[in-house]
């Protein structure tokens, strides 16, 4: 064992030094950042890394979230899966379940010591005694509004649910909608509903023993408030995904929306004043004191059993999180991808991006909001495999539809949601 560790350490040293005594280690990276500008930025970074590290050559193969849940297991089963794979927490449980995943405990420890991870970003990947992926970027939902619209209506930025409802009612005038909340059976609705749940003290959907803890008064309160506010949304919001909500906001038809970011659309499609764009934490229940939100920490998994490749991949991941490189990685989608490390949040390479500079105050608020992020199924320090199916079948959104579309009471819908989750967990 000791000999093996020494061998790996030696190889890693060689790779770090950029020596090329042997054939370079070739690594394939699958990521789901498929829009062309993201692929281009990733290629620029890879070219730079490959040039500086002749012993490790990384190539990218962009995939999409829609297909990777089927494609990755098939590829691993056929023996031609990638060496590194982007992930979100529930996808990690799937890849771990097919034994294609390698823990990254040592690397995570080193990077934690060097850069300091935002706790909310690494926690969803730490369970069963290991760290299963290295966080790469964070996304957190915030409340977006226009300063001019609030000022014209004579209202302050809402902090609580009752203030939010009053604001939305006031903003609902002249054919405009005070709020835009989705009620589709889709991931976006899962995310917005959970943004209410974390703000009423209903963040945990599992008990310690893995049983479902969904049906509780705080959850019912969150659903009831969401359904009440949803009535002030456009009638087509029952079929919305992220893009429709953003378009509603960008066209100044929706007064407030919950979204990861609207900066790109606001900049390129709304052509409005950056100073008019407002962002704030998601309002909380009146009986709570602080706001929280849902956050998705996207991470990178090691999926190769080859020790030389593992060492090469670790060199690449360490290089990527260096502040001078990391900011350029994050700004492949400026104003959407947020730092997962403390020194990444201060990196000049991040804040010098033209869009980030233009919307600096908004990005600062987004970064602050992301610190309070939680994700359903990953809040108790224990992870249960059924969260993949609960998330995949959009049970949280389905529960909302029982209220908004089927007309059930919030209590009955949440009770049915509890039964549905328990049924999935029992399989």
């Amino acid at each position, binding site marked *: 064992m000791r000999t093996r560790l020494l061998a790996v350490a030696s190889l890693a040293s060689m790779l770090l030094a950029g020596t090329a005594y042997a054939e370079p280690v070739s690594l394939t990276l699958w990521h789901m950042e*498929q*829009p*062309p*500008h993201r*692929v281009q930025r990733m290629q620029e970074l890879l070219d730079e890394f490959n040039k500086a590290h002749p012993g490790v050559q990384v190539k990218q*193969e*962009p*995939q*999409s*979230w*829609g*297909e990777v849940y*089927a*494609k990755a*297991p*098939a*590829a691993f*089963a*056929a*023996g*031609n899966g990638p060496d590194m794979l982007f992930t979100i927490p529930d996808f990690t449980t799937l890849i771990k379940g097919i034994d294609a995943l390698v823990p990254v405990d040592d690397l995570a420890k080193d990077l934690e010591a060097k850069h300091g991870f935002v706790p909310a970003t690494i926690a969803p990947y730490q369970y069963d005694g290991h760290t299963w992926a290295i966080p790469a970027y964070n*996304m957190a939902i915030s409340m977006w509004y226009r300063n001019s619209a609030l000022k014209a209506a004579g209202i302050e930025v809402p902090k609580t649910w009752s203030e939010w409802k009053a604001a939305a009612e006031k903003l609902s005038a002249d054919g405009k909608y005070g709020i835009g909340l989705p009620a589709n059976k889709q991931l976006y609705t899962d995310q917005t509903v959970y943004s209410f749940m974390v703000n009423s003290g209903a963040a945990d959907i599992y008990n310690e023993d893995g049983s479902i803890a969904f049906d509780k008064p705080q959850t019912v309160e969150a659903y009831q408030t969401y359904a009440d506010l949803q009535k002030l949304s*456009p009638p087509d919001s029952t079929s919305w995904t*992220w*893009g429709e909500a*953003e*378009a*509603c906001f*960008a*066209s100044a*038809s929706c007064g407030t929306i919950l979204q*990861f*970011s609207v900066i*790109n*659309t606001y900049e*390129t*499609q*709304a*052509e409005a004043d950056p100073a008019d764009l407002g962002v704030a934490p998601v309002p909380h229940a009146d009986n709570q004191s602080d706001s929280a939100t849902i956050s998705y920490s996207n991470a990178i998994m090691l999926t190769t059993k080859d020790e030389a490749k593992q060492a090469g991949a670790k060199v690449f991941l360490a290089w990527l999180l260096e502040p001078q490189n990391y900011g350029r990685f994050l700004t492949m*989608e400026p104003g*959407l991808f947020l730092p997962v490390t403390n020194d990444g949040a201060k990196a000049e390479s991040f804040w010098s991006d033209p869009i980030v500079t233009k919307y600096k105050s908004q990005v600062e608020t987004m970064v602050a909001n992301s610190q309070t992020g939680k994700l359903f199924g990953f809040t108790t320090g224990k992870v249960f495999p059924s969260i993949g199916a609960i998330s995949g079948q959009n049970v949280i959104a389905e529960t909302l539809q029982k209220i908004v579309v089927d007309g059930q009471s919030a209590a009955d819908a949440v009770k049915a949601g509890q039964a549905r989750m328990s049924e999935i967990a029992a399989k």
Partner: protein
Amino acid sequence: MKRTLPQSLALYAGLAVIVLLIGLPFWWVMSGSIKLPREIISRVPTMVPQSFTLQHFEKLLQSTDFPAYLVNSLLVALFSTVFTIALALPTAYAFFRMKFPGRAALYRLILVAYAFPTVVVLIPIYGLFARFGLIDTRASLVIVNIAFALPFSIWMMRSFLASVPRDIEEAAIVDGAPPRVILLRIMAPLIAPGIASVAIFTFIASWTEYLFASVLIVSDARRTIPVGFAGIIGQYQIDWGLLLAGATLATIPVVILFAFVGRWFVTGLTEGAVK
């Protein structure tokens, strides 16, 4: 019989409704692709564009791999169509005319291919193709498309063969024509509408196929339009102008196929075949 005025009005009103139902979505997409972003995202829709720009097409063709996706889709769809017809025609003729043991059972059995949801065979096909080094090749998509289009195409072709009068075939037999000649020189021209139907069915099925194209193709350079385009559009942030421009360009080859194949094959095919 001459139509009365009310009948004519009802007919034209019916036609107008059908044209609107079919044409409106196309008009919506195509007119939207030349609008400025602000007009596209406006909640008050404009049926006639109030602005004009080609920026979405410029971005699509210059900043993305859409042209490569278009070429890939054309290659995959054309090869799938040609090979499907080449295989379906003799197979249907064999089922229709030739006598061999188990013919009737086999003919019914080929439709079993549609009994399974495609996703069920996805993983086994991936494993099989990986073994033969076909992953990330356009050939893999052609094979899959043929496999799924062929059973229905055989059934469709056989129905068309059955509609050809027996007298024509018997005349060719009397003249000493072998089965190959009868099929290619006599029957194929007579069932050209059937061949056109199979061509259109296979081309569109291949053109829009998403599941296998998304899983069997790994590299960006070999992606087809449905998969590549989904990536261009993104998940959280949608560039609506880009989406509409891409949708407009993606429909053009199919429209051309309908216009070209429909006219070429269908006009007066069986005229004068039997006196």
